[in-house]
Structures are given as structure tokens and as C-alpha cells.
């Protein structure tokens, strides 16, 4: 393996930083067995009311937070696909899906007509300036987070390809109350 002499000082710093932070993160994990919880951020519901995410929950049942946007084709495909089976999922696992739109002022006023036009049954909120998106470290949409009944983050997934909804259901089943 060749290591070029021309690796810049910035590259070395970056490598050092990344490895020390990785160690810190791993050691932090070993010390603290608490899984991260949903951060407390303000988002707006479709009526324009401000809602704090710390109030998100599903009465002790698992819930999913899915980031999407009206212009993101894979996001809309994912939410359309799950919508067709959402009633079955709810009956089996009691899961609730919360769809957070990252549409900014260009499209945020159109989210309510859009969601109704697609007949979606989800709880939809708008994160207009990306505050929740940043707090959950989302880089691309769609991005899905699964929280258990205690509000702890247990699984997350980026991107959507047909068939991914089966994996999401499998993860939900793992943590949902047994019938």
C-alpha cells in the first residue's frame, strides 16, 4: 500500500480528528447504554400550528419519522407504497408514521393540498427551515427513523428503493408489542 508523501497537513488533521472522534463516540457508547431520543425542535402541522417534537409519541407504541419533500420522487414513491398497506401495519404493530416535509417556502404552502391530493393517512408536519433535519443529522431525503415505545432511536435508513418498506416492517415488528 503506497502512502503518498504529499498528503497535506489538512488531510492529516482530518484523519486525526475523525479517528479521535470515532474513538470518543465508541467509548461513549460503551459507557452509556441509553439510546438517543428525539431532540426537541419546533415544527408546524398542516394547520400552521407550532408543535414541539418532544410531544411526538404513540402511547408506548413504536413510531416512525420519515423525512420527505414534494419534489423528491423516491420519497413520494415510498410514502405512496406504504400508504397502501398502512392500515395493515397499524393493525398488526400499532405503529404510527410521522411524515416530516422539508419543503421550504417555495413549496411549504402546497404541502397540505399535495398530501390530501395523494390521500395519505399520515401525520404530516413541515420543517420549513430544516431545524429538525439538522438536529437529526439528515443529509439526503428520504431518511427514515424508527423509535421504540420509549421514544428511543433504534434504527434508521437513508434512501428508498422498492422493497425497502419490507425491511422497515421487519424492524417495526422486532420492537412492537406482541399480540
Amino acid at each position: 500500500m503506497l502512502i503518498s508523501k504529499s498528503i497535506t497537513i489538512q488531510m492529516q488533521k482530518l484523519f486525526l480528528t475523525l479517528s479521535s472522534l470515532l474513538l470518543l463516540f465508541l467509548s461513549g457508547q460503551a459507557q452509556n447504554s441509553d439510546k438517543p431520543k428525539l431532540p426537541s425542535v419546533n415544527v408546524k402541522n398542516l394547520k400552521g400550528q407550532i408543535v414541539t417534537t418532544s410531544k411526538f409519541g404513540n402511547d408506548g407504541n413504536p413510531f416512525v419519522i420519515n423525512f420527505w419533500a414534494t419534489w423528491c420522487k423516491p420519497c413520494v414513491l415510498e410514502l405512496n407504497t406504504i400508504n397502501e398497506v398502512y392500515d395493515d401495519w397499524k393493525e398488526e404493530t400499532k405503529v404510527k408514521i410521522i411524515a416530516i416535509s422539508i419543503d421550504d417556502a417555495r413549496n411549504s404552502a402546497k404541502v397540505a393540498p399535495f398530501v390530501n391530493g395523494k390521500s395519505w393517512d399520515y401525520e404530516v408536519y413541515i420543517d420549513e427551515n430544516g431545524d429538525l433535519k439538522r438536529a437529526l443529522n439528515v443529509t439526503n431525503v428520504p431518511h427514515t427513523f424508527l423509535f421504540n415505545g420509549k421514544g428511543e432511536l433504534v434504527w434508521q435508513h437513508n434512501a428508498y428503493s422498492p422493497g425497502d418498506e419490507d425491511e422497515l416492517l421487519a424492524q417495526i415488528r422486532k420492537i412492537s408489542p406482541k399480540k
Partner: protein
Amino acid sequence: MKNYNHCLQKSGAISIFVAFFFCLFLTGRAQDTTLIPDKLDLGSLSGSFQVDAQNYFQDSLIGTPNFPQKIGMNGFMNLYYTRGNFSAGVRYEAYLPTLQGFVRNTGSGIPYRFARYRNDKLDITLGNFYEQFGSGMIFRSYEAWGLGFDNVMDGASVKLTGLKGVVLKGIIGRQRNAFSNNTENQSEGLVRGADGEVLLNDLLGFSKYVGTQMRIGASVVSRYQKDTDPVYVLPENVAAFAGRAQVSNQHFNFYAEGAYKINDPSTVNNRIYKPGTGLFVQGGYFEKGLGISISAKRIDNMDYRSERSATFNNLMLNFLPPMTKQHSYRLATLFPYATQANGELGFQGEVSYKIPKKTSLGGKYGTGIAFNYSNIHGLERTHNTSDSLMGYTTTFFGVSDHIYYEEINLEITKTFSKKFKGSMMLMNVTYNKDLFKQLTGFFTTSEVHSFISIVDMSYKIKPKQTLRTELQHAYTKNEFGSWAMALVEYTFAPHWFIAAFDEYNYGNYKDELQIHYFTGQAGFLWESFRVTAGYGRQRAGVICVGGVCRNVPASNGFQVSVSGTF
């Protein structure tokens, strides 16, 4: 907090935050022996990262500029720490060197760091912050990594939510310069602002009785920049005011916002002393299966920045979104419209409807229909002959003869069976190409007409294997002529995908410019981590491949991208 002092001595930006987190960790451990709690709360650390690397081949056909380093890389890592009501974060960015299409200077640094405390009455951030007042008409600070856009503020932001139904915000700071990759060279202008929003239902106590929400808000922003002009007296404090009202319930929403900016001679508006005005109105009706939205916007001289001489996407204080549909299909993004802050009058209407399932038109699963119409004109200007420093005058509804943009768009989505889904889009675009070669918005009539048709189909071969294909065509009489595009994508859910796509400018009036923009890409995804690699020539814009949509710059060569959230 006294045991942190030895940690804060400067030894380089990176050492600071590594040391900070290490001390936090050590202090946490030290407390262990004195308090002996049952469960030690160390807080939680999370973050994300993305590294995009690209190698550049000289491509004389598409006229790539010389790239002596041969390989470019843009990368960032975000770290976010929370413990109870306290949170802090840092972002490290590296451009070694900057990818083509991004304006940042080559280098690396920390352009984003903050500490924040929040409870149910107060939310205060020191350091870098993002914020938006209303719809952003006079103030919006945000970031979009894929576009290379980040106008983050650096200073202080306070939010008060103690009184039920009332949200008060105050901000002060300087803005990030588009070229900078650290906190140096921030805007010369100092920005101050305040915003108040009231939910009338809560404040006046009639929440329980009325399902309709009514809110009003007002904001003021002011920029201070010293006047060093030898000839003209330039205003040092330039203020902008905005007021808004919103009414919404389960079936109906209405939003209106008006803004006024005092005299602001700048490079973008040709140094005129005319004040600026903006008005945005939107109304929507929706019920299950149907959504209708109509909006209108009038902007006159509303470019507002934290420095008078800033141009392009640098140091923008406000956000004036285009009144056009945001597209993700490749050929639909051939003619992207950008709001003409110097003056435009736009109108947009949208209807989306789902034909119910089990009807003859809807089929077994229902059919989705979406229709969109956008129309934008420039304002009719009358040159102000009595006072040329005031520029021009306009009437409220007066528009120029020249159309800026018009689009009629119809999209149909249908699930044919459990295995086969498809959608089709037809759009007719009229686009004023000369608009985008001028800074000031004075125009000539060079209209481009294009009729674009797109078919997108996906077939589930096996439960975990899907084949998706897109066929697109843009019939264009002028500009660069017609284009055709084809894409094939194969996914092995949930981890793998492979795709190939080609955009072919077959109609170009110059034979040698009839080129293929061909790219092959493959990727591996695991939970929230993603690695993709590709090769080929790509046109700049949004690309939706492998399950995500990303903005990419123009390129020719190998690309590798690694991203994740942890």
C-alpha cells in the same frame, strides 16, 4: 465549569473541539465518584458526514475548464451533542480542492459551531445559527450542501415562547461569505432583526371553540454597513419590514405576506435609491383525494444582502423562491427559473387529485393526477427622468410584454399491479434565456420553447429486485436543440443498486456538439450509510438515482461519494 479553563487555550481550531468534548467526557467520569448516580447521563453524540470526490478529465467538447489538481473533493462532518436542555455542535468542511461548480475557496476549516440552551420558555443560541422570519421574504438563513449554499449567521439568536400563543425572536450577527470555509471573512454588514408571531386563538383564548387557526406576524431586519463612497451618500442602516397573516383549518389555508425595504443602493439594483416592495398571497383548498393551491407574488427591487456590493448567491439575507414547480426529472430541469429580485409578477396554480380506486378510470389502485401552471412576467418600468437616482417607477399590475417563464404541466401516476407502477409527465415550457445572462434583469426577447415528455416505470421482478426505467424527451426549437434521455436502474433491496443513464443532445444545431452525457453508477447502502461510485459525463442539476435526490455539479470522470448519519 472551572475545570474547563485549561482546555480552552488555542492550539488550532480542531484541537479546541476535540479537547472540549474530551473534557466533557472526563468531567462526566469525575462526577461519577462524587455523586454515584444510578444512571450516568453523558448526553448523546450524533452526527453526519459526506465526502464527494471527483476526478476531472479534460473535456473539450463540453468545454471543461483546466483542472490541474485532477481530483477535487468536497467534504463535511457534523457533530451534534445534546445533554438535557443543552446542545452544541460543530461542522468541519474541507474543499481540497473545491469541486467544479461550487464557489468556495480551496481549504478547510470550521465554519459552523454553536452552543444552545433551550427550555419551554426560552431558546438561546450563541455562535452560528439558521433562522427564518415568515416565508423568508426579508430574512432567511439556511443551507443546502448539494447546491453549495450556506448563508449561516454568526452571532446570537434568542427565542421567547413564555406567553401562550406568542413567539418572539431576536437575532444579531454577521453572515458567512460564500467563498469562505471557516468563520473568517464574514460579511462586512452587521445584521439585526426581530420577529413576533401571535396565534390569535391562544392569545385571545378561543382555541377550544374554533377549528380555524388565525395567526399574524411582523418582522423587522436592519443591516448596518459603513458608507465609504466618495461621491454618494449611501444609507448605512438599511431596514426591511414585513407583516403576515395566516388562516387555516382542515380544508382551507390562506397566507399573505407583504414587505417593504427602504432605499438600498447596491450593485444588483444598479445603485438606485428606490425602496423595494414585495407581496405574496396564497390560498388552498383540500379534502381527502383533492388538493388545490393558487399563489401570486409581486416583487419590486427586493434584493437584500448583508453587503451592498455582493452578487450572485453570496450574502443573501432574504429568500424569494421561484413561483415554478420544483422538478427532479433530468430534462425537466433543463430550464430552471430563478426569481428576478429586481422585479417580477408571478402566478402559480396547482391541482392534485386521486381518482379513487376500484373505479373504471382509477383502476384497482387509483390513479393520481397533478396539474400545474406557472406564469411569470417582468414589471413594466418607466424610467424616472426627473430623478435618475430613483431608477424607475412601476404600477402595481403593470407587466412588461416580455414573458420570463411559463409552464403548463400534467403528471399522471398509476399503480397497474403489485409489480408494475408507472408515471407520465407532459410539460410545455416558455423560458426567457437572456434573463440569466444579465445581473440587472434588463432583458431582450429571446424566448425558448420546449415540449417535454417523460415516462417513468418500475417493475418488481422479485420481492427484492426492481427494475426502473425512465424515458425522457425535450423537443426544443431553439437554444441547444432537442434532447433525449434514458435511464435504467436495478435495485437489490435493501443494499445494492446499479444504474446507467444518458442524456443526448441530438438536436444541437452544431453536429460536433451533439454529445452524450452518459454516466454509470453503482452503490451500496446499509442503514444510514451510503457509498456510491460512478463514471461518466454529467450535466449539473438534480439527479434522483439510487433512491435519493441530490444536486450535483457538472463533471466528467470518476465520482465517489460516501455519506452517513450516526
